[in-house]
């Protein structure tokens, strides 16, 4: 339990945050929570599962579009329910991951570096596809996506204001973060570490590498899909950029800078980078992207474990904790 303290502490601080800042920042933090969730998904598959996915936005985007299509009633008015939307987003993202993964991991599998590039290529192709899919809004995407609706069976409780939305998101993100944190410390987590470091050894013990890789890949896709679905409820808008290369790069940067091997570090990395962006891009304008690129390069070469993860893991050693 004490290992979870830093995580719990972080979310405790987040919980009281709205009481201290104005409405603008609360709505910003809604986005940050969602991005943090997205970062968790990449940290899981990359930092814990050892699979570098350069196109993680694929699943975010799928979740986003599925949520949009469902809650806008584009398939059927019966499905215009937030819970159904979220569930569908998660399931369909995971299903797509299963399909993709069965290609990429089966047999001897593609080696890590090539796999990464293939996932990037998929993101690019999908973005192109969505831009040309007129039924789904094409290049302009889908607008007027309804916010989260906590009601069901005729009763409606739409979350239009940022404050109640914040607490709904907080609940979801905290639950997922905590669950993942327990998961990676469980026996499953041990298997993941084995896959990452010495998959052949594991095969000798009778484990199916394919199943393990697929499981972490799909789980990560599910979390990313959830993040995407939640995103469109606060943004109201789903577009091809949510499935493409730019967003995939962004989440990669957040997680690399924060630290891929510690869930909490990745989560904080997303939030810290976004806050830095909104602050620094005002000061430096277009030079901000240049600075980001250079920071990213430097962090990969000098502090490959992550700018937040390195001090965090030193701290955890000193305190005798196992932080995730």
């Amino acid at each position, binding site marked *: 339990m004490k290992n979870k303290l830093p995580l719990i502490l972080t979310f405790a601080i987040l919980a009281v945050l709205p009481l201290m800042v104005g409405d603008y920042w609360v709505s910003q933090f809604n986005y940050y929570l969602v991005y943090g969730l997205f970062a968790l998904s990449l940290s899981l598959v990359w930092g814990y599962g050892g699979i570098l996915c350069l196109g993680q936005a694929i699943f975010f985007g799928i979740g986003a579009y599925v949520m949009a299509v469902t809650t806008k009633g584009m398939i059927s008015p019966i499905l215009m329910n937030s819970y159904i939307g979220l569930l569908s987003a998660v399931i369909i993202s995971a299903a797509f991951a299963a399909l993709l993964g069965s290609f990429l991991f089966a047999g001897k599998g593609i080696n890590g570096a090539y796999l990464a590039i293939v996932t990037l290529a998929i993101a690019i192709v999908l973005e192109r596809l969505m831009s040309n899919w007129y039924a789904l809004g094409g290049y302009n995407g889908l607008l007027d996506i309804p916010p989260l609706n906590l009601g069901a069976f005729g009763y409606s409780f739409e979350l239009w204001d940022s404050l109640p939305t914040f607490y709904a998101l907080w609940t979801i993100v905290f639950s997922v973060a905590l669950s993942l944190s327990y998961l990676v410390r469980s026996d499953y987590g041990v298997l993941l570490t084995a896959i990452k470091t010495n998959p052949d050894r594991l095969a000798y013990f009778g484990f199916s590498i394919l199943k393990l890789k697929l499981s972490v890949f799909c789980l990560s896709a599910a979390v990313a899909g959830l993040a995407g679905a939640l995103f469109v409820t606060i943004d109201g808008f789903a577009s091809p950029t949510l499935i493409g290369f730019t967003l995939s790069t962004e989440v990669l940067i957040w997680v690399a800078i924060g630290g891929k091997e510690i869930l909490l570090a990745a989560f904080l990395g997303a939030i810290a980078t976004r806050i830095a962006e909104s602050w620094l891009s005002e000061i430096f304008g277009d030079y901000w992207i240049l600075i980001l690129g250079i920071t990213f390069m430097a962090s*990969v070469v000098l502090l490959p474990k992550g700018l937040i993860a390195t001090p965090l893991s030193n701290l955890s050693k000193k305190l005798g904790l196992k932080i995730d």
Partner: protein
Amino acid sequence: MDIIIPLFDAMSYVLILVLIALGLMIVFGMMGVINMAHGELFMIGAYVMVLIQSAGLPFVFGLVLAPIVVGFLGLIIETLLIRHIYLRPLDTILATWGLSIALKQGIVLVFGPEAQSVTSPLDATLVLGDFSYPMYRLIVMGISIALIAGTFWLFLKTDFGLMARAVIARPDTSAGLGINTRKLYRWSFVVGTALAGLAGALIAPTISVDPQMGLGYLIPGFLSILVGGAGPLAGVLVGGGAVGGTNSLLTVWISPVAAQIAVFILAILVIRLRPNGILGGKNEK
């Protein structure tokens, strides 16, 4: 007759793609570095032409300057960044990704995000009966073939190439024979980047030059390598032909989007069914 022009277009696209993939492969084969910024180096070559033209200098001057500028840039990149991350392919993806972001933004800051155009030095068209094709493109194809042949010659027939191939195969043993592997890595990187820069300069008059153009060649370049398989050189020809040819022909026959999707599915299928590429052969590093 309807097929000839698309075939020529496909050939010219394939040749440029092979030039890019060769550069990528040299760097990956030699030092296990995946250079995600390769597309940007290609793009910078094109921008050198933009600069040359706006300065009113002759076109050929640009063709000479582009590989020198980009090669020099490659030298700086190798010294400051790449040499810290040899033989760590996954880390190199990330680090060079950051580089590509920085380079792209650098160009945006200097030239702006809009597309630029470079005028072709030759307006002439070759006309043979019913067939007509822009002269410049034909010349570019010829130069590309010469460059590709030159690269093969460099790596297969010269002492530099012998040492380079030795270092790719067995770096420690090569060092144990007195070969300065670091110097070889550095100059191979420069050759690879200069090749990309020259390719960018050559192709500049035929496409729209903008800061985002790199990615559109980087990904097919990598897919060519994946699909072609086998040794560093021959595989790239086969892969480039397959990927480039399919992309180009399907773009004309169906649509650009369909072409991209089809190429991608094709690549995945090939990789899945023949993990070592069409030519098979030994496993990559």
